């Protein structure tokens, strides 16, 4: 059994958080930043620039008109949205790394992440949860980032994990823990720590398959991400070899006394917004 930190230590190229994004975030943290300074940094990275434009035009941000240049995007978005777009464009590059174990196709894990962010946003608004929108977005976007690392570095153990899921009907994350000693959620939480995201984010990622175990002060966000993730999986957005083999998280549903109908209505709302956004976030039906 490999120890999680051994794996992390043995990986020479843990996906670094894109430096352009880190730099750009620093710039906009100064309320008097100069737009040209920001543009100068972002333009260094073509893929980030392309991601930003795509994201600006996605359902999540819902801008009233199409944005076609980086400058326009920066001027048009508020600081909060700009921060989110920057983060997402960096996360996209991480998720788009080639993958072995989970057998995601190109871009699929990213599509799942952005779908989860949209679902979390819908739940947050409809259920009026006392959370901060930025944290929700960040946690939703990064929740499966552990899969990126696991996929490549424990690809051999995947057969055992899949066998446990099939033969013993174990939830996928339990099977991961049995074979590896940890699951992709824990690995993701650790990565978020390494990238120095706030504790609420790393906790939400770490407990997104067992939110009832999350430490109390950050439990609500874990519960929200867990529920959003499950609903998105049910709708088939970004499922792979793991399929729907996860335990349905009930804590938030019970807490808010949600009924079947409430869940269905939220799913409809999601589908509507998603279909508007389809081409923008590259959900490729092919």
């Amino acid at each position, binding site marked *: 059994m490999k120890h999680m930190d051994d794996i992390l230590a043995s990986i020479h190229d843990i996906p670094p958080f894109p430096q352009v994004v880190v730099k750009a975030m620093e710039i906009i943290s100064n309320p008097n930043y100069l737009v040209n300074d920001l543009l100068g940094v972002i333009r260094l990275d073509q893929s980030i620039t392309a991601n930003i434009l795509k994201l600006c035009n996605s359902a999540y941000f819902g801008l009233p008109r199409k944005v076609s240049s980086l400058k326009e995007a920066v001027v048009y978005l508020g600081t909060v949205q700009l921060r989110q777009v920057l983060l997402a464009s960096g996360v996209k590059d991480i998720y788009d790394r*080639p*993958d*072995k174990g989970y*057998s*995601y*196709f*190109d871009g699929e894990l990213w599509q799942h992440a952005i779908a989860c962010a949209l679902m979390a946003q819908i739940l947050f608004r409809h259920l009026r949860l006392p959370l901060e929108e930025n944290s929700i977005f960040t946690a939703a976007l990064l929740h499966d980032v552990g899969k990126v690392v696991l*996929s*490549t*570095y424990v*690809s051999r153990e995947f057969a055992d994990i899949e066998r446990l899921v099939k033969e013993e009907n174990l*939830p996928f994350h339990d099977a991961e823990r049995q074979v590896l000693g940890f699951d992709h959620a824990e690995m993701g939480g650790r990565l978020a720590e390494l990238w120095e995201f706030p504790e609420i984010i790393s906790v939400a990622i770490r407990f997104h398959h067992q939110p009832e175990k999350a430490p109390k002060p950050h439990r609500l966000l874990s519960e929200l991400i867990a529920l959003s993730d*499950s609903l998105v*999986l*049910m*709708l*088939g*957005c970004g*499922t*792979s*070899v*793991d*399929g*729907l*083999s*996860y*335990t*349905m998280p*009930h804590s938030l*549903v019970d807490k808010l006394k949600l009924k*079947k*109908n409430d*869940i*269905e*209505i939220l*799913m*409809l709302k999601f*589908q*509507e917004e*998603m*279909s508007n956004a*389809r081409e923008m976030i590259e959900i*490729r*039906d*092919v």
Partner: protein
Amino acid sequence: MIAQKILRPALLNPFSGNVRMARITIGIADMKVSADPADILTTYCLGSCIGLALYDPVARVGGILHYMLPSDSINPLKGEKNPYMFGSTGIPRLFKACYQLGAEKKRLIIKVAGGGQVLDESGMFNIGKRNYAFLRKILWKNNVMIEAENIGGTMNRTMYLRLSDGQVKVKVSREEMVVL
């Protein structure tokens, strides 16, 4: 260790395995029918949703509906706007669309995939099961039977319908390809 990029199977013909070809895709909450024997209808991302395939071997006409929820009774307005979201509004439309292309009810072969669900003992999230139960009920009422199906469990699925002969294949959780 550098993993190879996985070629999306969408680029390959699922029936012959090697010839690249164009496909017609049915999205979530969507329906398409065809009378062109060169077409392959495909629907991805069947989690708890249902993929319903109809085929008339004489007229060589077929179609797929991919619906999300059983009944539009939770929101009839949404059912009007996009009838393919629901079984109640989508299923009759799929039959009618096939009839319009020359299919006949008595010849239609019906195959079903999807209806999976997350692990949940409470039954609160058994949308897959309810989607399937709804389909059975509506078909039974209309005196038609399902010929073959691949449903339930925690699997996600992709469904293909080949218009030239009506063969249906289902790809289950990225691995097995099952002929229905």
